[in-house]
């Protein structure tokens, strides 16, 4: 028969293990390779599973709010917003207008912070080391605003059920405006460093292509869906917390490859600054907390509320049985569902492209594993 020597191409199974600088957390990807080309991938997750949904069944509604921040730890304020909106819908209360506007400001700052982490680490994986330092310097300014407002930089626990706990500190508006004025030229600087750069263009175009039909089939949402050409954003389609009052655009891409996702997220940062400026102009006076009882016991029922987190559609499905503790809390994580598309995108690519694709899906393992 055929003389097969060890030089014949057979499949090589390579483990991109849980400890790896480019997997954005403890993600294990088992690659089946033919030389340098990827034939198939398999993701093994669960290294960061902490049982947050089980904890939710054993804590009261107010006590569970700090745990929710720790799922998507890069963008903790959005998680808090989704949870508070879900419980408020169960209780059938609405936060007062002043609380809603401040929530929008903090959530958009959070979106910028999350995209800055994405930009820094994604470009670091591709090989551009410098943008990481610049993006984290901008993130320091946002963290300082959070620290002055609610007391913690990362796991903020900023929102309470029914509104806000803390009144705005003196100088909040000025800090936010200074940040917006400092930040917009920085985005242009990042574009100068990265967008026209031939190395980046060569490494990102036609890598990880996911067209619109595949996105909808795999349930992928967020910037990945918009880069494929579908102009859909939950802030415009089903607005929450007063988003219908603000004027912003939804950036879309054409091909659905990594370069388009990069451009979509850069443009989203600019649109977020636009929303923050509009919101700062119209903070109304008034109470910051709605009439919510001290002991929260929602009526028996269930509700599903989802928001547009920086990574996609983040949903909370809460079942209440009339007692002070929820009966079931289900967190629908965008990164978990988006990560399924890794296999589809990585077939036929090279190993170095797999690193770029994992970076462009923008996963946070705390959210994937909960």
């Amino acid at each position: 028969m055929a003389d097969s020597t060890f030089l014949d191409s057979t499949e090589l199974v390579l483990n991109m293990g849980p400890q790896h600088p480019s997997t954005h957390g403890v993600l294990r990807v088992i690659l089946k390779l033919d030389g340098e080309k990827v034939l198939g991938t398999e993701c093994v997750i669960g290294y960061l599973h902490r049982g947050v949904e089980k904890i939710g069944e054993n804590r009261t509604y107010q006590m569970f709010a700090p745990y929710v921040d720790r799922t998507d730890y890069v963008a903790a304020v959005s998680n808090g917003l989704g949870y508070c909106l879900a419980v408020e819908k169960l209780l059938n209360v609405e936060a007062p207008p002043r609380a809603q506007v401040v929530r929008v400001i903090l959530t958009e700052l959070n979106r910028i912070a999350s995209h800055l982490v994405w930009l820094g680490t994604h470009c670091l994986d591709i090989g551009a080391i410098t943008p990481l330092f610049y993006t984290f310097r901008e993130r320091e300014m946002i963290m300082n605003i959070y620290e002055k407002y609610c007391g913690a930089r990362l796991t903020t626990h900023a929102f309470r059920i029914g509104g806000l706990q803390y009144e705005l500190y003196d100088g909040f508006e000025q800090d936010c405006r200074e940040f917006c004025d400092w930040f917009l030229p920085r985005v242009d600087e990042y574009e100068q460093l990265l967008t026209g750069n031939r190395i980046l263009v060569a490494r990102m175009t036609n890598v990880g292509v996911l067209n619109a039909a595949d996105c909808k089939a795999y349930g992928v949402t967020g910037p990945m869906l918009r880069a494929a050409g579908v102009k859909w954003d939950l802030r415009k389609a089903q607005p929450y917390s007063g988003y219908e009052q603000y004027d912003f655009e939804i950036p879309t891409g054409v091909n659905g490859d990594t370069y388009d996702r990069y451009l979509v997220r850069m443009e989203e940062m600019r649109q977020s600054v636009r929303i923050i400026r509009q919101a700062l102009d119209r903070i109304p006076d008034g109470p910051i907390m709605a009439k919510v009882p001290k002991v929260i016991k929602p009526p028996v029922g269930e509700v599903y509320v989802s928001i547009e987190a920086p990574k996609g559609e983040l949903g909370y499905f809460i079942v209440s049985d009339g007692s002070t503790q929820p009966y079931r809390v289900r967190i629908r994580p965008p990164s978990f569902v988006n990560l399924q598309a890794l296999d589809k995108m990585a077939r036929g690519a090279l190993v170095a492209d797999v690193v770029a694709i994992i970076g462009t899906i923008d996963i946070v393992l705390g959210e994937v594993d909960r």
Partner: protein
Amino acid sequence: MRKLLRRIFLIDLIEGLAVTFRYQHPKYITTEQYPAERPKIAERYRGAPRLNNHPETGETLCIACNLCALACPENLIVVGSERNEQTRRKELTTFTYDTSRCMFCGLCEDACPVDALELTQDFELASYSREGAIWDRQMLEEGPRPARYKY
């Protein structure tokens, strides 16, 4: 033609390098020399817990109402009290706070009705043993004493 010249002479890479070289100016240094210069912490920062005393009489402000222990998601506060027969009030005897499991969420600080329990700006909470991280009443009133380094 212009695109060809841009490609040959590496103009796009040089534009990126121009940004990097502009940042070499010393006014852009953002590094804080940590043990020598302490960072500025905001007033609302949720750091180490502290039991406050009345500023004039020096007695503890805590009325042993146990609301902080009930509010804690991790159940790590234990408040011991005994009833004083003369004043008919509860007096605080022991107060235990487990900083190794604390998430610094601030729910205990929000629950305290008399502002006795407060989360301060201290963030240097390291200890050499697991038992050392469980603070009793005296440690809570004084605060942690991190080592000060002199150069």
